[in-house]
């Protein structure tokens, strides 16, 4: 095979990609015109495949070379990203959520937006990214040049010339597809689809070579393992430091590399795609790595020694006559290299135009306006500027990559070059992690960390990478600058003997993090910075309530006439149609007709976000500030919002307390009302009861007295009837006595007859007195003779009356087959309590509150024989004695507790209550 076949094949492949990209672009546009979303172009599969831009020519060619030189260490480059992706719930989820919420256009934009939309941070990250990507692009150019060279011995083209042509061709392709529009989300459907196709091509190519090697060339996996053991060499032993360091570095790189950020965050159209990518991307990496070691082993054992192991993928099939497979491998490597270059160039060009070119242009325009020159107003002028800036940047970035390739000689191992890039971009890590998780991270800290890390990386890794004598003199490498040996690039602060990559990684990242933390601790962030820190760190809380007060960057309304200027500016950037549609919708949302909405803080915020999707947060912010300047949020505004919120919360707490109090009062009133109603019902039933009670004796008295008035009554009958009349009169009198007694007791007019007595005697008297009560049945009374030895000084007659009442009630109502009454007495702190507990069924709960009310009777039957005044009188007596009587629930029967002071003092009675 010669270049005559390879060059047309490569060109045909590029044309094929071109067609795919345009088809995808056209389809996306047609769907958008119909108002639909391009579903397949934005499926999780395409998303995952586009992530494979991580696997560049480094993976396709370099991994085999790496494995041949260092054994398993090559796997760390893919294990790091695997860990980051299976741990997507930690970082990736938040990163993508913030990227979408803030309409981030690049990693520089994300970091600058978080640190107060500071363009200085953006510029710094951009410069770092451009520098760090140079070696990476050079790596791709080198691999393409090498792969051409592997086919064509005595080629007509030198590798450098070839690399130049490749760089130029890629620049054209990238410009054609990467800068077609300033999509609000910076998404490129065509390019992403083409990258997804390239992902399939390189995977298929590598798998094809691998399968051919394992089952075609050798005798399956066991043969591979045997040969691996035979080929084992000391270099293959795992070096713990590098193993851990490289796994970490690769994990960091997959987050911070500009092209990875582009496909991972910027081109992400749905957060849920991450869930698929979390396992599918590690699976892709697994598949890409699976045959690396077998191919390396086969190359080492079957090919003549001295061949470049980086090209085993290509030279194995080529040398063994498998030309078709070799062509497939060539195309796979070509696609791996091109996909990386395209995406990296797009990502970097976006950063360069948004953070360097446009701000410069804005400044120059401001100067021109200050000098009295009319501001340029043509619609689309700014769009043109941004697009041209991107085109130029793409060309410039590829040119830089070529320069690195040309200067560094293009002869080193691919993996070693790639790791320099990784270490460079890893410098963004402290600022990035701080941006996502630390409210206190500040712009000063981020700047300090980035500058420190970048300088150490440049000094200890990037500049020495060209080799001694190219950019750094050999003496400087050996002796340090000015003979200061502790500043030698590969042995900073006397740490010698460490692997140069690990050494640079350790010092750059640790000094970077130290500067970042120290800078953040001592500085005080500005208001925009604090607003942004809340929006980033608390992104999950903010999404729930889209408008939390105090999270806007603008505080006051802009003047009305400024809305027109804003529209003019937006048209320049977004294009007339898009800008007008946006303003129209905003005006309609505010209930206004026409194109000009009120420039409220809310509107300014949304407009800024819209513009940020095209030119980045810092530039969008600066452009709006130029028109409505002076209306930025201030620290006072933030504080006002905070105290307002605090006041509102306090008010609501007070309201809550008040409403609770009201509820409590209402409950009390309701209870009182219920009580009154019950009493009213009781009174009614009493009246009928008392009428009945009074009427029954009265009726018999009247009837018998009428009989007595008759003449024909025998003397015996007279005696008998008179007896009945007397009995009934006594009953009447007793009833009236009770009523009178109760009324006297209730009014506190009772005269207490205070005497001394022993409690046991009183109980004894009560038990004796109640013996006569029907029904006469066996009734056991258990007492505590020891506990009754209590001396009392009180109205013993009244107290005995209470005891009698209770014991009698127990005799009457206890429904147990073998009724029994326990009387427990106790003296505590001068108060006597006497419990009367029977073994009947007790009193139901709902009636317990009623039994002490007047005329309450649990049974409506007449069997009780009283008028239902007994317990009411007892209660009044006890109150007059300074004590109480209460029902005691939960004793296994009806239980009453009578409690009263052992010595009744004057004033302790009801009058004082």
């Amino acid at each position, binding site marked *: 095979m010669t270049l005559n076949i390879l060059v047309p094949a490569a060109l045909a492949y590029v044309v094929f990609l071109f067609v795919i990209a345009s088809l995808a672009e056209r389809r996306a546009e047609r769907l958008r015109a119909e108002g639909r979303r391009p579903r397949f172009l934005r499926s999780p599969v395409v998303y995952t495949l586009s992530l494979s831009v991580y696997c560049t020519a480094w993976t396709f060619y370099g991994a085999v070379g790496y494995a041949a030189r260092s*054994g*398993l260490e090559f*796997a760390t480059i893919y*294990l790091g990203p*695997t*860990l*980051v*992706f*299976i*741990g*997507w*719930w*930690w970082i990736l*989820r938040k990163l993508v959520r913030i990227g979408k919420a803030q309409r981030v256009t690049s990693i520089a934009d994300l970091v600058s937006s978080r640190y107060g939309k500071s363009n200085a941070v953006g510029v710094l990250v951009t410069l770092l990214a451009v520098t760090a990507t140079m070696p990476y692009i050079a790596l791709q150019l080198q691999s393409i040049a090498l792969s051409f060279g592997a086919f064509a011995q005595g080629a007509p083209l030198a590798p450098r010339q070839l690399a130049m042509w490749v760089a130029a061709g890629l620049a054209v392709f990238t410009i054609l597809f990467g800068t077609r529009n300033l999509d609000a989300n910076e998404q490129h459907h065509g390019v992403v689809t083409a990258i997804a196709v390239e992902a399939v091509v390189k995977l298929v190519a590598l798998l094809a070579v691998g399968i051919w090697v394992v089952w075609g060339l050798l005798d399956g996996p066991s043969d591979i*393992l045997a040969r*691996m*053991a035979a080929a*084992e060499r000391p270099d*293959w*032993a*795992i070096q*713990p430091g590098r*193993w*851990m360091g490289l*796994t970490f570095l690769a994990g960091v790189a997959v987050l911070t590399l500009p092209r990875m950020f582009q496909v991972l965050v910027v081109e992400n159209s749905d*957060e*849920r795609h991450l*869930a*698929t990518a*979390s*396992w599918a991307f*590690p*699976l892709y990496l*697994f598949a890409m*790595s*699976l045959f690396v*070691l077998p191919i390396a082993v086969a190359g080492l054992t079957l090919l003549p020694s001295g061949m470049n192991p980086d090209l085993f993928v290509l030279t194995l099939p080529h040398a063994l006559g498998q030309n078709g497979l070799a062509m497939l491998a060539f195309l796979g490597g070509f696609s791996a290299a091109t996909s990386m270059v395209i995406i990296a160039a797009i990502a970097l060009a976006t950063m360069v135009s948004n953070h360097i070119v446009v701000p410069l242009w804005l400044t120059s325009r401001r100067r021109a306006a200050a000098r009295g020159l009319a501001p340029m107003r043509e619609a689309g002028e700014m769009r043109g500027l941004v697009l041209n800036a991107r085109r130029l940047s793409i060309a410039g970035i590829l040119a830089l990559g070529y320069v690195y390739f040309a200067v560094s000689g293009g002869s080193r191992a691919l993996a070693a070059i790639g790791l320099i890039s990784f270490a460079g971009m890893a410098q963004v890590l402290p600022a990035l992690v701080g941006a996502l998780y*630390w*409210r*206190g991270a500040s712009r000063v800290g981020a700047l300090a960390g980035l500058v420190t890390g970048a300088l150490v990386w440049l000094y200890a890794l990037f500049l020495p990478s060209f080799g001694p004598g190219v950019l750094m003199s050999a003496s400087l490498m050996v002796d340090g600058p000015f003979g200061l040996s502790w500043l030698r690039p590969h042995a900073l602060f006397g740490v010698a003997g460490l692997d140069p990559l690990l050494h640079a990684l350790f010092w750059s990242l640790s000094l970077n993090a130290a500067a970042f933390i120290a800078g953040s601790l001592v500085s005080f962030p500005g208001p925009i910075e*604090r607003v942004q*820190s*809340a929006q980033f*760190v*608390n992104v*999950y*809380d903010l999404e*729930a309530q889209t408008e939390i007060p*105090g999270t806007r960057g603008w505080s006051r309304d802009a003047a009305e006439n400024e809305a027109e200027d804003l529209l003019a500016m937006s048209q320049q950037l977004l294009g007339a149609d898009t800008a007008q549609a946006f303003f129209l919708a905003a005006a309609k949302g505010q209930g206004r007709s026409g194109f000009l909405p009120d420039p409220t803080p809310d509107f300014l915020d949304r407009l800024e976000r819209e513009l940020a999707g095209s030119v980045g947060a810092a530039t969008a912010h600066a452009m709006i500030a130029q028109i409505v300047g002076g209306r930025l949020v201030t620290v006072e505004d933030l504080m006002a919002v*905070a105290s307002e*919120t*605090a006041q509102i*919360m306090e008010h609501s707490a007070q309201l809550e307390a008040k409403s609770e109090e009201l509820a409590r009062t209402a409950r009390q009133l309701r209870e009182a009302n219920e009580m009154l109603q019950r009493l009213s019902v009781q009174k009614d039933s009493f009246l009928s009861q008392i009428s009945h009670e009074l009427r029954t004796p009265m009726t018999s008295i009247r009837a018998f007295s009428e009989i007595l008035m008759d003449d024909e009554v025998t003397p015996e009958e007279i005696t008998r009837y008179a007896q009945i009349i007397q009995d009934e009169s006594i009953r009447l009198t007793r009833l009236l006595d009770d009523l009178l007694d109760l009324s006297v007791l209730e009014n506190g007019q009772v005269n207490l007859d205070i005497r001394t007595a022993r409690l046991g005697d009183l109980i004894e008297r009560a038990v004796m007195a109640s013996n006569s009560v029907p029904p006469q049945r066996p009734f056991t009374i258990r007492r505590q003779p020891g506990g009754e030895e209590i001396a009392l000084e009180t109205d013993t007659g009244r107290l005995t009356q209470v005891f009698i009442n209770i014991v009698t009630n127990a005799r009457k109502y206890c429904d147990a087959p073998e009724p029994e009454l326990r009387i427990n007495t106790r003296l505590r702190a001068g108060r006597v309590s006497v419990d009367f507990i029977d073994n009947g069924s007790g009193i139901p709960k709902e009636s317990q509150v009623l039994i002490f009310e007047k005329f309450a009777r649990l049974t409506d039957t007449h069997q009780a024989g009283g008028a239902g005044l007994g317990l009411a009188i007892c209660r009044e007596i006890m109150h007059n004695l300074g004590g109480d009587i209460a029902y005691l629930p939960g004793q296994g029967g009806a239980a009453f507790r009578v409690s009263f002071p052992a010595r009744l003092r004057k004033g302790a009675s009801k009058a004082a209550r």
Partner: protein
Amino acid sequence: MKPPRAPLFLERKTYRRRRLMDAARILPVVGFVLILLPVLWSGGDEGLSTATEALYLFGLWLALVVAAFLLSGPLRKALHPDPDSPPDPATPPRDEDGR
């Protein structure tokens, strides 16, 4: 400004989802530890051969992919929980001082 307090106890479904998120967070940590294991093996002279280590590493890799696959389905649903469910206390709201 005090953040709204997250509920202290959760119903069964939400509780399961929380533990699932915990698992998703722990998985990479476990993976990292297991990936570092070969470093310990190859310490001595009688360290394992590259072939054995490769078998271990690729087996582990596949196991991690399968674990991530099993977790990804339920987690995808948890990304957009029902609007009436309580806010996600996985990232408790913090004030400016990070309290």
